[in-house]
């Protein structure tokens, strides 16, 4: 049992769950349990139908590695990455979509991993900060952040870098103004913005493949 403060589930979660299950025969009766999965498909649902406490099978690729796991429906993509896959590079800043620390790429697009459930990403490809480097060779954006001091405490940095890579790939790094607008989803409490912009401009101007 983890005691990570980032987990919104209390440490006695399993116990709470058992107590709840005892009290909730009603709920299980209402739920579409796996027995109904076969008919579910015919009625327009896929096989991923779960009762409230049941874990749901999930297969997805993270940083090129295939994972076949099961998750509770209410696990966010962020918590799943950090707690279940132990990829703690992706940070939890606000947990409400307001800071960008949790930015990852889903099928190549940057998103806030704190505001969607992991189960919604079945079959998709996730890239986190851990998946950016090529072996021991840092990604050009990581190098540029080091070179330009694009951080102080470093907490927002994984999200900044994931967002910065997407910003360049999207073609939204054309000018300082455009970079600032398209990086506005990533807050830095240390105020490293000027150096972050410089790092992105360096990468954009350097012409390396990003």
């Amino acid at each position, binding site marked *: 049992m983890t005691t990570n403060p980032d987990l919104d589930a209390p440490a006695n979660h399993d116990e709470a769950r058992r107590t709840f299950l005892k009290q909730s025969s009603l709920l299980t009766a209402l739920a579409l349990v796996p027995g109904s999965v076969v008919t579910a498909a015919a009625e327009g649902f896929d096989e991923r139908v779960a009762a409230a406490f049941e874990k749901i099978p999930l297969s997805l690729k993270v940083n090129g590695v295939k994972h076949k796991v099961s998750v509770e429906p209410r696990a966010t993509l962020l918590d799943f990455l950090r707690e279940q896959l132990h990829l703690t590079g992706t940070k939890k800043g606000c947990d409400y*979509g307001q800071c960008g620390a949790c930015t990852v790429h889903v099928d190549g697009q*940057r998103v806030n991993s704190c*505001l969607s459930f992991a189960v919604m990403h079945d079959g998709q490809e996730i890239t986190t900060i851990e998946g950016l480097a090529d072996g021991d060779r840092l990604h050009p954006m990581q190098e540029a952040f080091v070179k330009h001091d694009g951080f102080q405490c470093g907490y927002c940095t994984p999200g900044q870098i994931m*967002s910065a890579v997407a910003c360049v790939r999207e073609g939204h790094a054309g000018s300082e103004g455009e970079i600032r607008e398209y990086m506005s989803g990533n807050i830095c409490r240390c105020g490293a913005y000027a150096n972050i912009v410089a790092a992105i401009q360096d990468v954009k101007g350097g012409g390396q493949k990003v």
Partner: protein
Amino acid sequence: MNQFQYVRATKPQAAIDVVAKDPTAKFIAGGTNLVDLMKRGVMTPQKLVDINRLPLNKIEAQPTGLRIGALALNSAVAGDAQVRARQPLLALALNAGASPQLRNMATVGGNMLQRVRCSYFYDLSMPCNKRQPGTGCAALEGINRMHALFGASDKCIAVHPSDMSVALVALDATVLISGPKGDRQLAFSDLHRLPGDTPERDSNLEAGELITAVDIPDNPFTRHVHYQKVRERASYAFALVSAAVALDIENNTIKAARLALGGVAHKPWRLPAAEQALVGQPATEASFRRAAEVAMQGAKAFKHNAYKLRLAPNTLVQALKTASAA
């Protein structure tokens, strides 16, 4: 967060059936509003129907306009070549909302149905008729600087927070809906409600109704358009006030105008009288000022939002100046 049952729909009808039958069930699209509200305990659905795999994300040219699927992402719509060419006002409004990451998750249907940002709605320890009918409205006598100027009731004075919706109401959009009783269409201006005595209802959708698409008719507003958003930082913040304007100008005379304000009412606030006041007038600041005066008739401020009585007309005039110069 509360526990819930998760089902993923592969056919619209299946999704509709589940939500129509179960008042505790909700559709989930991008999740950027619903997951947020669930984490805070403001919404506690017992069942989530994931609609992301439904084939509703196309942006299609039709003979008389564009049809945008309800699951089209905000970023995809804002970046779409047809949207930018035929409905540039919509692209401007979308890009003024949220952040690039959020726009990569947020869908068109979810955006229009996002819930209010009133801080008391989010605060479980405070009375709020929208969250818990009958408990009262904490904003009425509380901090109400973000709140409405038009159409409020003594039950709720919150404003609709969507930027996209301000453009859609100005562009005479129509919402396509599938429900337990079949398909229907709703003028976009009839989708959202004024709070009246039932602020717990944000929209005129019935239980289980699924938005499938939005239609935007072709119009002459491809050049003189602007979305002006005033917020407390340069980006990534909700509007204090916003204005969506579209003008058809010939020889410096305004032939037609479409105007709407955001951040001033429980729904995106179309301004028909101000539009009329512009028709036939020269495209000058004096005309814009007069129209803005007309627009503000009937506005009523609360203790902390009186600044909007000046901010709203000024925002509208600024938007009109920018649009006419485009």
